């Protein structure tokens, strides 16, 4: 797919007249140039620092006053390296999809920074933001509602080119769309069909083709296979892995299925109530978890092996996740944690390598936000 490789040197091509925002032109050009510079494999391409998003809760109709806030994301930091897959897992309401929206710049954060190649994208606007957006694309969960039923597949996949005309000259678009269909394993002759003529797995391929259209560097996948049948999930996962190698993509893979996240991810972050509880390589998180929440989550996963279940220790948490509008003081997991002590209610545990594992080669030496972090293997039979 030589045609799909990044076309270089369009930095100052076609200034978009429709942009009305007045920004200092020279700094904007600088920002665009920074965004277009290549990143070495393994270097951080995206750095998230203390990201916060609070949604205000208001009361009153004419005179609205804020009575509180849903703390959807409350201090999240992580790095995404070039060419890797970072998995983000957590239960519903933990803020993982809000993180995705913030990374896409679909929501403005309340506080914190997102550095893409050193540029804080939360402060960008105009041409520089547009250049960033071209490089960060998204694949959505539900292939039924994320494709417009009145548009043909060709129009859906080609729509990004209307916004970024420099990515494909007008005469070439049809050919480009057909190439994209071929890349994701669909027949290029389907270009004039409508979404309802495809199955769920095929629709998700269309969504992936749309995400690839602008040759992005990062794709944010929000539950990309959870709406698909079991026998089709594997096809889509394999496709995503192949595309990552072929186009040198970095993925942020958000899902609640811990087995799939382990399969596809190089590193995994576990979220609980708007914070990261634990983050590390897939081996560190799955084989050597140190945060009680990670341990409970892993032990609750039903394993498709009846022999193993009889020998696995299961930690059944009591109660439900507290409301993010009124999270517990100190450690947010303490209300459901079997290890909780007074300290947990008073001090917020920081996401850091636990003191006892510091400086050791142990795989337990990874960042974990628990005062009483200790290693416990929960995925293997005892």
């Amino acid at each position, binding site marked *: 797919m030589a045609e799909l490789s990044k076309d270089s040197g369009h930095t100052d091509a076609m200034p978009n007249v429709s942009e009305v925002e007045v920004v200092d032109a020279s700094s904007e050009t600088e920002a665009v140039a920074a965004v277009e510079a290549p990143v070495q494999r393994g270097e951080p391409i995206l750095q998230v620092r203390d990201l916060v998003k609070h949604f205000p809760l208001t009361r009153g109709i004419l005179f609205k006053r804020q009575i509180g806030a849903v703390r959807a994301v409350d201090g999240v930091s992580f790095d995404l390296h070039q060419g890797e897959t970072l998995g983000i897992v957590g239960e519903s309401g933990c803020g993982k999809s809000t993180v995705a929206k913030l990374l896409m710049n679909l929501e403005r954060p309340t506080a914190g920074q997102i550095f893409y190649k050193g540029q804080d994208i939360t402060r960008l606007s105009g041409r520089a933001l547009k250049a960033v957006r071209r490089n960060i694309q998204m694949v959505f969960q539900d292939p039924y509602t994320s494709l417009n039923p009145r548009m043909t597949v060709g129009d859906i996949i080609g729509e990004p080119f209307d916004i970024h005309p420099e990515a494909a000259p007008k005469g070439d678009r049809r050919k480009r769309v057909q190439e994209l269909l071929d890349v994701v394993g669909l027949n290029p002759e389907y270009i004039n069909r409508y979404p309802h003529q495809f199955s769920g797995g095929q629709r998700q391929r269309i969504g992936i083709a749309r995400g690839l259209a602008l040759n992005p560097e990062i794709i944010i996948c929000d539950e990309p296979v959870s709406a698909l049948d*079991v*026998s089709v999930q594997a096809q889509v*996962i*394999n496709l995503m892995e192949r595309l990552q190698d072929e186009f040198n993509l970095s993925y942020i893979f958000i899902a609640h299925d811990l*087995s799939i996240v382990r399969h596809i991810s190089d590193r995994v972050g576990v979220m609980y109530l708007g914070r990261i509880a634990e983050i590390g390589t897939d081996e560190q998180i*799955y084989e050597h978890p140190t945060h009680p929440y990670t341990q409970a*989550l892993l032990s609750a996963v039903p*394993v498709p092996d*009846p022999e193993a279940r009889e020998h696995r220790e*299961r930690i059944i948490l009591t109660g439900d996740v507290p409301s993010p509008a009124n999270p517990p003081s100190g450690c947010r997991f303490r209300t459901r944690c079997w290890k909780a002590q007074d300290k947990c209610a008073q001090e917020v545990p920081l996401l850091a390598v636990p003191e006892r594992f510091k400086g050791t080669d142990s795989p337990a030496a990874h960042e974990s936000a628990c005062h009483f972090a200790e290693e416990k293997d929960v995925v293997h039979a005892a």
Partner: protein
Amino acid sequence: MTSLETAPANAGPDGTAPLLEVRDLHVEFKVRDSVTKAVNGVNYSVNAGETLAVLGESGSGKSVTAQAIMGILDSPPGRITKGQIFFQGQDILSLPENERRKLRGARMAMIFQDALSSLNPVLSVGFQLGEMFRAHQGLTRKEAKAKAIELMDRVRIPAARQRVNDYPHQFSGGMRQRIMIAMALALEPDLIIADEPTTALDVTVQAQVMDLLAELQREYNMGLILITHDLGVVADVADKIAVMYAGRIVETAPVHELYKRPAHPYTRGLLDSIPRLDQKGQELYAIKGLPPNLQQIPPGCAFNPRCAQARDICRTDVPALVPVTGEDGTELPGRASACHFWKETLRG
């Protein structure tokens, strides 16, 4: 009768009869000029105290079979074209509707996937739970409410007395699913059909709800039909499994056997295509192609276009669900496969 046989001989109104037995069930949906064959000859049975898991993808006919058992099939367009359903020895398909209604809720009950849309949003949960007692047992409102509180306690909803007048939206997803379970249990039925009961729940809550369901099943010695697509949930709770594909059962087996040695290429493909939690795998095995269109089920074995082992006979002859035998020729209890080449699959 601990096994799932293809043509049970001992099903009658005697002590050895299974609690529920479905025989050669066919269901189709007729919409304008097209006929969708959703269920094409399903046989299964459940005993008291036993859990049968019906495993299949969307469109495999697993939920339609359950609706036919409960008598809640959308009809028209749905129609049972052939087959019998025996419940406690009685052919319930031949019963008049008013007799069927007495069975529903009282002797067989169903738990649906989506608790929020299955509960009435404008009635309190206490009223909806009490409705079971008012309709079936003629209790007064006050008595029914006391029963509702008792039920909420039983499914471990905290502070049941204070929450009995709350509305469904005031409960979390896990609590709502507990209310659904309470409603199914209300009249202590002999059979419960749970259609994807935990699919909409988070993994930690899913574990709580499945544990509760299993515990209550033991307590009341109920038969449970668990309909799911999740191979993990099945492994945790089922005694035996029936795998469905394109409206037919393609394999039945006790739970351990199925995971250890599947005897149908579709089952094997499913097992190979799920990633594992306890090890980092290589590329996943993927079953090629798509689930079949039920208006045009392929001739022969419905799985043949997706099967790596398919040969000529698979494209012409529909394989029967036949008992699976071990190396020495003895029948393996409870095992059957609808594959022409089950021997190769089992041993290969």
